[in-house]
């Protein structure tokens, strides 16, 4: 016989083996005996050890059912080495549901959450759980400032199911208790107002825009914050002597806080010990604390290890791989109000990277990430390499920037560090499926897909298709666009970023076919452009490895039949019919340090490119003077050199780096080798409008560049007067455009990045180099918004107001224009 005072005594030094001869269950009314035995994991015939692990485990399993208020397993009897067990349980009614009275409907969800912490449906109801749940509900109200709230709970047998109860929580909320006054006593050095400001959550009721509820836990934090504030001023002995909280006549709270400020202390001598890599001057400079400064423990710690901008003493070492670095400031003397510090430094060895681990890539193949990283095994650890690697990973565009994790677990015994990158894949493919109204030309249908993480090698491996072969970082883009009769466009491109896998040399192969046919059978009017292009891009090692050099060859033919638009020379000759060959080489040098392709917060992206055809005439290939006679013969083999400069900078303005300033300059120049031939009518620029034509009528033989606030028609240089006195649209050989844009993100969630912008822009187009005047700009200001959806690309709009518009020139004298952005940002 056992009871709680007289427990059976087992000698743990001598456990005995028994065979279970039988198991009885007592106290179960609603649970089935066999089920209970099953849960214990014990069975008749089984060998067990007493004392041993089996019985406690069985009891634990039973507790876990949450059906009993008491569980014990006892020995009924033993016969030789056969033991008979009794499982005693105390069952309680089961909790079926609960309800609230006196609580607003809107609060029920929050209150349910509190109740569910203690009570589980289908589990048992204990007194303890009831009290806890009621207290939690009351706590919810107290936190909201209803200090006088009361909650009672009633248990009611539920008739709908046997052995079940429901609980009714009765809430009496009562009035909210506000803080009438906070009195601080004993403050001489600091004004009361200043101290109250340190209390973030505990405020007097007269403060505007701030609640004045009393929350005991936060009040404790606020008192600590007040003392912490004193500490930053050198009062390191400051403390709260006592505080009292009482009600005034109106039932509102009054807080009296009595403070002892203590003395103000100052730094005196700071000495360094144990430093061999950096000298005392360097360290003192980084620390930035001078003799005579007010003693500020928080500032000291910040300057040693926790500086926001990483310009602290620890970072100085850590950035260089001294990961085992440690500094301990010891107060060696306190004399009067002066404190001498000795900085005891342990430098330790420079850590070597052992393993670089990449986790979380469940679509992108590991080598695609690993080859981009600047942290490599066997190298010395450096923080700047990690930052660079982080940028590379984000730059791939396959991973969520916000959840990218980097850990650096160190192994002090071996002096090594592992670097663990944890990535989260995000959708990076784009699908374009649209039907749009293309003005007078009717409906335009588009079907386009871009796979940014394609895997060519898995093309014939069915298992790797989900839904397409992916993971090798190749980019495949296919696009078809047509409105049937008038316009057809097909293009395809494939890019392999690491050709051969040894160098970051990218190979792109692309081709397109565009057909415009606005004529009738009687009067044909047609333009067909076909192009095949191959280009190679190499990451340079000098001047630094952010530079990329690209070389490409473009083979383009243009077939015109009675095409009267746009291809006009500066001599006002129009190229209308015939086949033209535009064979060019392209070179570009670019440097890209922008952090994120979708919402860059810092860095820059600069590209200078030259596209040039052979100078056929200078080379003596086409030097027959007769060829100059006819404009169409003259440009049969188009010759030009075309320069583009595009530079953009991103500067974070706000502390959280969200508000970003984008500064951009774009310049284009199309030149000729030979005055006798003149500037080509093809490959020119058309400035103005929303640049959307770039997509709808891609590759139209001119570069279409947007200018917000102005339509193409608003720029006088876009027109040329014909001999008959009419005006004709012409594309220009020179343009420049400058933009400053303030951007602020509303959402940086990679599944929908949203930002708003305000811009000021100036740009113009010129017909000859002599006319070019960088200060003669058409200026505009405006606002806009962008949404980036992974499957659809960038969508958005801009509203722009052009100052320099000729009201007579523009339609109905309206100075503002509205631009839509679909798919991707226009040039």
């Amino acid at each position, binding site marked *: 016989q056992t009871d709680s005072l007289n427990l059976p005594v087992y000698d743990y030094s001598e456990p005995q083996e028994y065979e279970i001869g039988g198991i009885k269950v007592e106290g179960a009314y609603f649970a089935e005996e066999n089920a209970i035995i099953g849960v214990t994991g014990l069975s008749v015939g089984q060998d067990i050890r007493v004392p041993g692990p089996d019985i406690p485990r069985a009891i634990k399993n039973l507790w876990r*059912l949450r059906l009993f208020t008491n569980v014990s397993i006892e020995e009924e009897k033993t016969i030789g080495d056969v033991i008979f067990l009794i499982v005693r349980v105390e069952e309680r009614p089961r909790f079926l549901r609960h309800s609230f009275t006196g609580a607003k409907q809107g609060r029920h969800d929050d209150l349910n959450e509190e109740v569910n912490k203690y009570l589980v*449906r289908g589990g048992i109801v204990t007194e303890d759980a009831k009290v806890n749940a009621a207290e939690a509900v009351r706590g919810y109200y107290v936190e909201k400032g209803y200090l006088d709230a009361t909650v009672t709970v009633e248990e009611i047998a539920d008739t709908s199911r046997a052995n079940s109860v429901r609980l009714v929580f009765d809430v009496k909320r009562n009035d909210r208790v506000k803080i009438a006054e906070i009195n601080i006593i004993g403050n001489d050095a600091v004004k009361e107002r200043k101290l109250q400001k340190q209390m973030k959550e505990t405020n007097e009721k007269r403060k505007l825009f701030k609640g004045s509820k009393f929350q005991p836990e936060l009040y404790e934090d606020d008192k600590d914050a007040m003392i912490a504030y004193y500490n930053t001023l050198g009062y390191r002995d400051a403390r709260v002597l006592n505080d009292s909280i009482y009600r005034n006549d109106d039932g509102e709270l009054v807080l009296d806080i009595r403070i002892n400020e203590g003395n103000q202390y100052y730094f005196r001598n700071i000495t360094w010990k144990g430093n061999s890599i950096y000298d005392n001057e360097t360290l003192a400079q980084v620390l930035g604390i001078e003799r005579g400064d007010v003693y500020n423990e928080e500032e000291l710690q910040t300057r040693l290890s926790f500086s926001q901008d990483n310009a602290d003493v620890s970072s100085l070492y850590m950035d260089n791989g001294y990961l085992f670095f440690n500094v301990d400031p010891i107060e060696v003397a306190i004399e009067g109000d002066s404190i001498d510090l000795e900085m005891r430094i342990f430098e330790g060895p420079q850590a070597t990277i052992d393993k670089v681990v990449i986790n979380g890539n469940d679509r992108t193949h590991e080598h695609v990430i690993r080859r981009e990283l600047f942290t490599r095994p066997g*190298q010395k650890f450096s923080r700047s390499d990690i930052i660079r690697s982080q940028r590379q990973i984000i730059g791939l565009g396959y991973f969520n920037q916000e959840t990218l994790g980097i850990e650096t677990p160190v192994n002090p015994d071996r002096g090594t560090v592992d670097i663990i990158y944890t990535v989260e894949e995000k959708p990076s493919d784009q699908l374009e499926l649209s039907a749009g109204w293309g003005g007078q030309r009717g409906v335009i249908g588009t079907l386009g897909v871009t796979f940014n993480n394609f895997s060519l090698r898995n093309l014939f491996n069915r298992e790797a298709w989900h839904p397409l072969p992916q993971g090798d970082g190749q980019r495949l883009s296919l696009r078809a666009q047509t409105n049937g009769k008038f316009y057809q466009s097909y293009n395809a491109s494939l890019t392999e970023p690491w050709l051969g896998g040894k160098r970051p040399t990218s190979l792109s192969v692309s081709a397109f076919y565009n057909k415009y046919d606005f004529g009738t059978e009687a009067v044909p009017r047609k333009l067909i452009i076909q192009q095949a292009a191959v280009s190679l891009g190499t990451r340079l090692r000098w001047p630094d490895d952010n530079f990329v050099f690209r070389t490409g060859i473009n083979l383009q033919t243009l077939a015109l039949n009675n095409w009267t638009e746009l291809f006009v020379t500066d001599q006002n000759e129009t190229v209308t019919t015939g086949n033209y060959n535009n064979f060019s080489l392209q070179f570009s040098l670019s440097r890209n340090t922008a952090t994120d392709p979708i919402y860059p917060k810092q860095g820059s992206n600069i590209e200078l490119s030259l596209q040039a055809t052979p100078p056929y005439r200078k080379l003596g290939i086409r030097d027959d003077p007769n060829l100059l006679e006819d404009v169409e013969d003259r440009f049969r083999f188009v010759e030009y050199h075309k320069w583009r400069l595009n530079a953009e900078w991103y500067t974070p303005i706000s502390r959280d780096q969200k508000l970003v300033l984008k500064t951009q300059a774009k310049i284009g120049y199309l030149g000729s080798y030979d005055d006798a031939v003149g500037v080509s009518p093809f490959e020119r620029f058309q400035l103005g409008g929303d640049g959307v034509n770039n997509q709808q009528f891609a590759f139209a033989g001119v570069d279409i560049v947007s200018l917000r606030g102005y339509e193409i028609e608003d720029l006088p240089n876009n027109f040329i007067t014909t001999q008959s006195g009419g005006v004709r649209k012409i594309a220009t050989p020179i343009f420049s455009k400058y933009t400053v844009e303030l951007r602020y993100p509303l959402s940086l969630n990679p599944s929908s990045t949203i930002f708003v912008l305000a811009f000021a822009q100036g740009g113009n187009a010129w017909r000859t180099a002599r006319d070019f005047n960088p200060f003669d700009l058409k200026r505009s200001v405006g606002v806009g918004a962008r949404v980036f959806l992974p499957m659809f690309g960038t969508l958005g709009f801009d509203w722009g107001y052009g100052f320099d518009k000729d009201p007579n020139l523009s339609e109905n004298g309206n100075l503002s224009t509205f631009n839509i952005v679909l798919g991707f940002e226009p040039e």
Partner: protein
Amino acid sequence: CRSEFETIRTSNNPEQILAKANEYYLAEEYQRAQTLYELVIAPFRGQAAAEQIAYRYAYTYYYTGQYVLASYYFKQFATTYGGSSLREEADFMSAFSNYQLSPVYRLDQSYSVQAIEAFEEFANRYPESERVAQANSLIDEMRAKMELKDFESAKLYMDIERYESALTSFGNVLKDYPETQRAEEIRYLMAKVQYEYTSRSFRARKPERLRVTIELSENFITRYPDSPYVDEVTRYLNESIEELKELENV
């Protein structure tokens, strides 16, 4: 006009729901069975039927390809019904569900690690089980995959001419996978990488690196005298000895 499934689902009659769930389960309509089993878990708590419900509930996740949850529910079954005759199977299936999630070697191998741990635990707990052989062979399969992954990443460093990184990574493969079949190839590649690394080093760093080449080459030749790579490694050795002599004589 509600379907039979909907009618049962909203019937609030545990016995009826369970009967129908079992019917769906046996008819291999696991998605529906899952929905219904979920409803009867609470009402049958502490009843004899609870065990089979939990067991089949876990299987519905397995059969519908939701291996993460399947693994979790098999594990939960095994801890709740410690004495069950189905426990061994549940422990195995919990590991096997993770095995199903283990992807090609080019991707993250977290599930492989989890599966290996679970299979090892299984083999320790049920050393007599006839499933142990299968567990071991699956462990071998996944370790081979992880080894290949580490080997390929070392080779990547070799291909992009990051010699130090390649050497460190090859060394780690030998250390982490003592059972590797590639030991000979790896030691050969290490000698080769060290040889190329040395040949592209500044003169001042050469003697020290030549000594490492010599050590790696000698080591390889003694270990694998019949290797097809022996001739090549011997060349590294001889050239390195020669060059070191010259450098030291100057």
